[in-house]
């Protein structure tokens, strides 16, 4: 936990500064909305982070959101499929995408950047094509209000996506930090060849990281679709893969693999949402949104490197 302390302190300082700048930050409505978004973004960021720890990258996340959203809307609204079936179908699709990309990367040794970049283009194109590039939604939610609750509801005053994220983070944390497979993923991220020479089925483990990313992207994609309730196929989820990557890097993952933690990724994801929130609350022109985020991520990584002494640049 020592590693996460630095980023956590930065996160707290940021929250304090924002609440000083605009006390509404701590208002119930704002907190609820922010934590809801932290939940949605946190879940897929865990997937992106696990892939990065295994020395990979997943650039297709944002386009998968679009495809998942479009298909979910079509199944529920256009074809009136029962929501459990629709959810299952969409989860199966995202698992399939993860398996497909992971197979190309692990078994056929095609660079992850290329495979998922092609995915980024391909899934977006398919989403736009099958929807005729028309914005889709869920209307009044007739027949599937129960599932919308997962995205929009609260439990004991806490947004459900945030609770889901906590649950998934606990499972992922045990998987990554306590289980045999997690150790294998770290070993692969640090030295895949030595891991192979230790008898680890490296191909299968790398594939597994992409499948996990696919699954968590699917879950987030469902939540995001219900949360926005309007899926513009050409822009829904645009750049979201970079939120995942940025959250992981802010949280201590190295793009060179073998570094990072679930707690760090969650803090990183939370910080990105607070920055978004900060832009709104402090009256910064929203056109500066990305610029602010870029600067804050850079400052975070630099501060981490120079003040916390973590070696983000070493292998």
């Amino acid at each position, binding site marked *: 936990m020592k590693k996460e302390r630095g980023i956590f302190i930065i996160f707290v300082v940021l929250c304090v500064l924002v609440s000083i700048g605009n006390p509404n930050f701590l208002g119930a409505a704002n907190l609820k909305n922010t934590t809801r978004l932290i939940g949605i973004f946190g879940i897929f960021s865990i997937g992106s982070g696990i892939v990065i720890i295994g020395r990979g990258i997943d650039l297709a996340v944002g386009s998968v959101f679009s495809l998942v959203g479009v298909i979910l809307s079509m199944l529920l609204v256009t074809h009136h499929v029962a929501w459990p079936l629709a959810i299952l179908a969409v989860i199966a699709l995202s698992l399939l995408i993860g398996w497909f990309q992971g197979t190309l990367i692990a078994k056929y040794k095609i660079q992850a950047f290329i495979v998922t970049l092609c995915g980024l283009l391909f899934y977006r194109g398919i989403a736009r094509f099958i929807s005729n590039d028309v914005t889709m939604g869920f209307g009044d939610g007739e027949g599937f209000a129960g599932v919308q609750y997962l995205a929009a509801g609260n439990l004991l005053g806490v947004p459900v996506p945030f609770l889901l994220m906590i649950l998934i983070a606990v499972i992922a944390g*045990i998987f990554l930090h*306590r*289980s*045999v*497979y997690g*150790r*294998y993923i*770290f*070993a692969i991220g*640090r*030295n895949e*060849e*030595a*891991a*192979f*020479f*230790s*008898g*680890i*089925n490296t191909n299968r483990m790398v594939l597994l990281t992409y499948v996990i990313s696919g699954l968590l992207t699917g879950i987030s994609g469902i939540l995001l679709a219900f949360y926005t309730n309007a899926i513009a196929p050409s822009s829904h989820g645009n750049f979201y893969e970079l939120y995942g990557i940025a959250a992981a890097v802010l949280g201590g993952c190295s793009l060179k693999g*073998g570094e990072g933690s679930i707690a760090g990724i969650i803090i990183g994801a939370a910080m990105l949402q607070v920055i978004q929130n900060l832009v709104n609350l402090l009256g910064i022109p929203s056109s500066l949104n990305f610029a602010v985020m870029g600067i804050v991520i850079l400052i975070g990584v630099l501060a981490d490197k120079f003040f916390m002494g973590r070696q983000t640049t*070493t*292998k």
Partner: protein
Amino acid sequence: MSADIVSGTPGPFIRMKGISKAFGAFRALDDVNIDIRPGEVLALLGENGAGKSTLMKILSGIHIPTGGEIDIDGVKQTIDSVKTAQQLGIILIHQELNLLDNLDVAGNIFLGREPTGRFKLVDKQKMYADAAELLKLFGLKISPQTSVSKLSIAEQQLIEIIKALSQNARVIIMDEPTSSLTLKETELLFGIISGLKAKGISVVYISHRLNEVTQIADRAIVLKDGKNSGELAREDINHDNLVKLMIGRDIFKAEQEGWAYKPEYSFEAIDISTYRYPGNKINLRLVGGEILGISGLVGAGRTELVNTFFGIHKPAGGYLRLNGADKRINTPDDAIASGIFLVPEDRRSQGIIVSMDIVQNTTLPNLGPNSSGGIISNKKENEATAKVAKELNVRAPGLTTLLKNLSGGNQQKVAIGKWLSRSPSLLIFDEPTRGVDIGAKAEIYAIMRNLAKQGVMILVVSSDMEEIINISHRILVMHEGKISGELMPADFTEENIMRHAVGL
């Protein structure tokens, strides 16, 4: 050829009595006595520097002895030149062949003795006819006009023998004749030697290959440090006796007792070929407690071979057998499940993960027993690591020290330690002490010997000659994807290894 030689009388026709030879202050030979009988194959043996070659060079007129005398057919002879020796029927075939590349076969056979016709011109017609006859006699399908440079080493050697015979040789001395021959060519040579014997011609056979000696020699004379060490009659020629005389003590036996082989454990490679040399089938076998060294030059295919044993690459052909059961090993996981482990060649990129600590490195292949329900038990893995670290004397500030902060020797101990908690059947070491200091080297050798004593099969690939000689019970040498030689301890010399390594 005179009748008394062919008659096969057991009496010697050459006696070398009290031969001494000094090169400056160095006494190469000191009062050596040998005799050569007609129609016998006499093996002349000894370690490098024992004086075998010097003695034979004296007999063939290359060196003049400092003392002693040579009797031939009971007559004292002064052999002061190669020409004198040749006239007496003594021909030495050098280890390095002495044929002239720019001449054809016939020209080489009759070099210096070309048949001449009128005006002392070379009678080429007769020379080629005679040469063809000799070649036919040995069953060689080579034209006398062939340039020597186009012949294989074995064929060149046969030309040397033919040349010797055409000089009416009574004794042909062969210095390491098979060192450059394939097994098949060696058999051909042995056939020719039998033929020579039948004609009453004696052969003095100098070789390091004891198994060849036991195969063809009628008698063996062993030299040691320039003196007679002993003589063995045909029935007494065996490996142990030869080694005892050559080394002067029973080193091989003594160590063999200490080695305590367990033949119930065995590893066999049967017709295994690797992706790098898919056409070359390799067969080898080792047993429990044996340390088998594999030497050879870089690129000989050693690492590819042992990596194939460990499942890094799938074999291009063939299969493996462990303790008598066939094994298909396609991945390291398969190998590990069978108890076959590898300490790889490139430590930092294959053997260890430098940015992980001692515990994580040591237990990486052993997380199964150190976990329950897929969850790692830190207690178990710390205990398991502490045990191995103590056993191997890993020197580090603590078990959570990152590997990059350890010395090469301690890193290597961790790379070895990964496998020790799993009771290995076969442990393969590829360049085990590369980049390791001398102290740790000795410790790693001790670890290897200790494992062998416990019945583990040890396979060592090393480019370090001293290391492979020091640690191995037996050495295989590889050349261009094939096993080019097998050496027993008595033959462990850098020269022997190098000769096989370069494929001579």
